[in-house]
């Protein structure tokens, strides 16, 4: 079976044979970063189309259906429109911060991609503090939002940014605690290590009820961290026009829009890494012959005897699972967005401080007991 590490080592050796080590390092950095960003941008394109179709169908509409087949080219038309529009800066705005804010928030959300494991051996930065890094970086995103809101010199923008700050600071806690439950179960902070610990069943199945509970809490808290409905108080169209990006237009607005979807993608990647086994295929943790056969098929055991040129296909198998889970969680988040009405600010804070936080602390204690007593699989 060919692994991704074989491919990357081959590329590394090829480059090393004809270049200086520092140049190889530089080229590999750029190629890896561009590959990750392009993969994410393709995901974002699919997500935007998906969002509009899901929204349409859940609200008994068609969604985009005029530009191209079933509206497939609608997004490209929108991007061209945004690129052609002027990026207007208000006269009284703080010009430097106003220009920096979208770029900063984009950088922060792209940084969170670094420790994500896309496939076996396919990781930009294989660090043993991967999950910690992602949680640290994702709470930096609020700085870009605050900067945008404050520098636009607009009351709506400022209010939206402040709400966003309060919201992200609150929901970081329960998101972090539900991440900690899985980190405790897996015993590592390395994303690749967490995924490998799920080779004999995903944590959401192996960890009994507390893991499922942590999964639900994580989905709720991460939706809030992405500032998406039903927690979109930072935008709150009906109250604050567009919240923190009220004054932005053209591609600067486009970057904020892109940023929202990149954040969603990152959050979904973390959720699939922690709870749904990342790139691991589905595994039944039972001791029946049928379950064994199923697991062998899922792990592509039958391909081992095949000629090498066909087994190249098996390289795509972990990616199929990774992106499949990614889009499953993104679909969940879209499903919530187009079903639930928006919360008021007091309801939002009540949900976090009176329900999610105490419940996730109790949940963490129960998981700790499970680990001590060895009750999990």
């Amino acid at each position, binding site marked *: 079976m060919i692994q991704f590490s074989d491919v990357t080592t081959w590329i590394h050796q090829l480059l090393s044979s004809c270049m200086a080590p520092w140049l190889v390092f530089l080229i590999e950095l750029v190629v890896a970063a561009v590959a990750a960003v392009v993969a994410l941008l393709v995901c974002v394109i699919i997500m935007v189309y998906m969002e509009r179709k899901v929204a349409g169908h*859940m609200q*008994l*509409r*068609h969604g985009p259906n005029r530009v191209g087949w079933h509206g497939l080219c609608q997004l490209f038309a929108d991007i061209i429109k945004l690129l052609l529009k002027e990026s207007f800066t208000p006269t009284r705005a703080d010009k430097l911060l106003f220009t920096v804010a979208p770029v900063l928030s984009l950088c922060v959300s792209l940084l969170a991609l670094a420790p994500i494991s896309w496939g076996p051996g396919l990781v930009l930065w294989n660090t043993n503090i991967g999950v910690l890094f992602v949680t640290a970086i994702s709470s930096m995103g609020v700085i870009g939002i605050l900067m945008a809101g404050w520098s636009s010199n607009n009351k709506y923008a400022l209010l939206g940014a402040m709400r966003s700050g309060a919201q992200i600071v609150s929901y970081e806690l329960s998101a972090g605690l539900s991440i900690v439950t899985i980190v405790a179960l897996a015993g590592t902070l390395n994303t690749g290590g967490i995924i490998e610990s799920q080779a004999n069943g995903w944590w959401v199945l192996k960890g009994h009820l507390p893991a499922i509970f942590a999964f639900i809490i994580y989905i709720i808290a991460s939706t809030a961290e992405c500032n998406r409905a039903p927690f979109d108080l930072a935008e709150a169209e009906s109250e604050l026009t567009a919240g923190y990006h009220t004054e932005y237009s053209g591609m600067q607005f486009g970057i904020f829009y892109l940023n929202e979807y990149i954040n969603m993608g990152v959050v979904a990647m973390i959720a699939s890494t922690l709870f749904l086994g990342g790139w691991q295929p589905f595994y039944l943790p039972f001791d029946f012959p049928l379950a064994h056969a199923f697991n062998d098929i899922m792990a592509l055991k039958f391909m081992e005897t095949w000629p090498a040129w066909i087994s190249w296909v098996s390289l795509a198998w972990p990616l199929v699972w990774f992106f499949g889970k990614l889009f499953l969680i993104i679909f969940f988040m879209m*499903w919530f967005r*187009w*079903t639930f009405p928006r919360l008021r600010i007091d309801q939002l804070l009540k949900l976090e401080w009176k329900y999610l936080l105490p419940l996730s602390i109790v949940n963490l204690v129960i998981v700790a007991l499970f680990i001590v007593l060895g009750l999990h699989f």
Partner: protein
Amino acid sequence: MKALYNYLKEVAFAFVSLANGLLLTLKYFVTPWKSIITENYPDNRDHPSVADEFAGEVILIHDENNEHKCTACTLCQMACPNNSIQIISKQVETEDGKKKKVLDQWVYHLEMCTFCKQCIDACPQDAIKMINSYELSCFDRSTLTKVLNRPGSKLKEKAKVTPKVQE
């Protein structure tokens, strides 16, 4: 203990009620051919589906004998909030020599009508109604002023009320 029970009950109930909503939208999502209510308007022009209750324009009801029920009482004209109805009546002499006011022209200014249905409510004879027509716009404003009573139409005779035979 009671408080803890109530707290957990609240959480469980919240999940149940949220799940109800989620199932409904999921049903809409997976069966779009059944649930979508948007009309693909210019595409389905040859087979439109417009609700009967849709208020398009006012018509004066004529029966097969080209008779209508309008007595030219002008109640609709008075009910109209923006003067889009003009009732022009004339005096005619009936066979038995009496002078009677009858409808000459029922002028309807569609360009001013807001489709509020107050004329329909005001009419004591149920002589007018609104039909579900659409695509009412045109290039020449004057074509929107319509005379609703057809040429040669006349007032429908009231069914003879048989006088109660005194016994």
